[in-house]
């Protein structure tokens, strides 16, 4: 009975809480650590030692494991999300940079930056299920919500490669602006947005015709155009708002994802690269590589709520599902 009372209390506490408490995981490329930040208190709660050059970071759908690409160790480390112990590694192939899980969680797709490959890992057997040769310096990895299409961007070939996840073959290559870094699908599967760091644009690609329907450009008063270098992209599930991290412009662009109009530029830390949304989409987190912090942004009010110091050269961000 005592247990029931406790559970009852916990449940009501959860119901009245204004925002859920998620764990935000930040990979710090330079000091080989992961910083865990509590989304509710917005304070760092733990620093975890990992392998060398951690960049791409993801959480399994059940929230139990954190997957970290440790490029200089040529592997992906699997950390227990409860204890932060390293419980295994995944055979990523050389120099894994960025990874994406299939929506059903059965496969992990990894970009091998130095080998011009995308490696597919079967999560049940933890073995390599295939390799796909792509362009030079593969990086961005976006998976369609139905899991049928993977988009990989290759930084030096300047292409978005559309890969059929059933046949593991490239079905289309779309030439975008220089140095494509990131691919993000809309939740309705209609478009994929690809950022070009040196080109300074985001290409909106129609997933049926593979045509670029819009190239979004950015202009910030008082900033030279070369400093505007789009990297991370996130689009809300309702397909209305998109966020683009603009690198050394130190800003996150807010875009109306239906009209493509840039609504605002939010000032964050220095050299902002990757972005992550909390599962309830109330908060957006940016990693600011040069200022060694993250910025936490309120998605509704578009207010930058707080900067939280993390490790050296924060690169990737992942958020626990609950």
């Amino acid at each position, binding site marked *: 009975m005592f247990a029931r009372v406790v559970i009852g209390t916990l449940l009501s506490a959860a119901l009245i809480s204004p925002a859920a408490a998620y764990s935000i995981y930040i990979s710090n490329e330079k000091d080989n650590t992961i910083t865990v930040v509590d989304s509710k208190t917005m304070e760092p709660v733990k620093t975890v030692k990992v392998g060398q050059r951690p960049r791409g970071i993801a959480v399994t759908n059940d929230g139990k494991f954190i997957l970290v690409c440790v490029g200089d160790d040529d592997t992906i480390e699997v950390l227990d999300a409860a204890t932060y112990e390293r419980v295994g590694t995944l055979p990523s192939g050389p120099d894994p940079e960025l990874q994406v899980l299939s929506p059903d969680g059965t496969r992990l797709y990894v970009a091998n*930056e*130095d080998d011009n490959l995308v490696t597919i890992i079967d999560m049940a057997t933890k073995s390599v299920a295939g390799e796909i040769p792509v362009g*030079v*310096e593969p990086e961005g990895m976006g998976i369609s919500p139905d899991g049928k299409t993977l988009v990989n961007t290759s*930084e*030096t070939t*300047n292409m978005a490669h559309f890969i059929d996840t059933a046949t593991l073959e490239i079905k289309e290559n779309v*030439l975008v602006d*220089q*140095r494509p870094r990131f691919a993000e699908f809309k939740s309705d599967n209609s478009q994929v947005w690809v950022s070009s*760091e*040196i*080109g*300074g644009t985001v290409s909106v690609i129609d997933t049926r015709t593979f045509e670029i329907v819009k190239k979004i450009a950015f202009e910030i008063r008082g900033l*030279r155009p*070369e*400093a505007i*270098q789009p990297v991370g992209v996130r689009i809300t599930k309702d397909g209305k708002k998109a966020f683009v991290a603009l690198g050394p412009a130190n800003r996150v662009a807010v875009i109306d994802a239906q009209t493509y109009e840039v609504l605002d530029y939010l000032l964050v830390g220095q050299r902002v690269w990757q972005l992550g949304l909390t599962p309830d989409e109330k908060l957006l987190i940016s990693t600011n590589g040069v200022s060694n912090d993250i910025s936490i942004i309120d998605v509704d009010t578009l207010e930058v709520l707080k900067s939280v110091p993390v490790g050296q050269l924060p690169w990737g961000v992942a958020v626990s599902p609950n």
Partner: protein
Amino acid sequence: MPVFTQEAADHDVIVAADESEVFATYLPYRTWIPRPVAGSAGLVPSSWHPSHEQWGAKQIQNRFVKATGRRMNSKDMQAWTAVRIIGEAATRTNSGSPEKIAAFIKDPGFSIAAFKGQRVTFRPWNWQLRQPVLLSDARNVVSVSPQEGFLHQISELDTLGIDQPETNCKLKQQ
């Protein structure tokens, strides 16, 4: 060298302009008063350096070592950039026609990525490639110019080298 530099007026740094490397390499650690040397010795500007890793450069350095068995120097990078410019124009125009490729390269909007942290472009008045310059000692890149704070109305990269208003030279139009 100590005696040679003994009579110099008070200074913070010695900048040597000695492209043929006749005397500059004898300057560091041999000056009368302890001052850093830059230019043709000490802190040397260059278009590439084997230790340059930033902005994805680590990837091209790895590829180059794998392909050639040695590290990449400035001449290698210049050759890569030249071929890259033609390749970029060929893929963007989807053409092998020299006229189309040349026209694309000469377009004011032309730029390429060259592992230097920002797009590199052409100066239309003399067709020099505008690009950041690495400042390195023998082993490491120390800094990349233009240095912060040097401003220009067209491109901050134009703060490097001789700019259009500073010269009477005119490129022969073809």
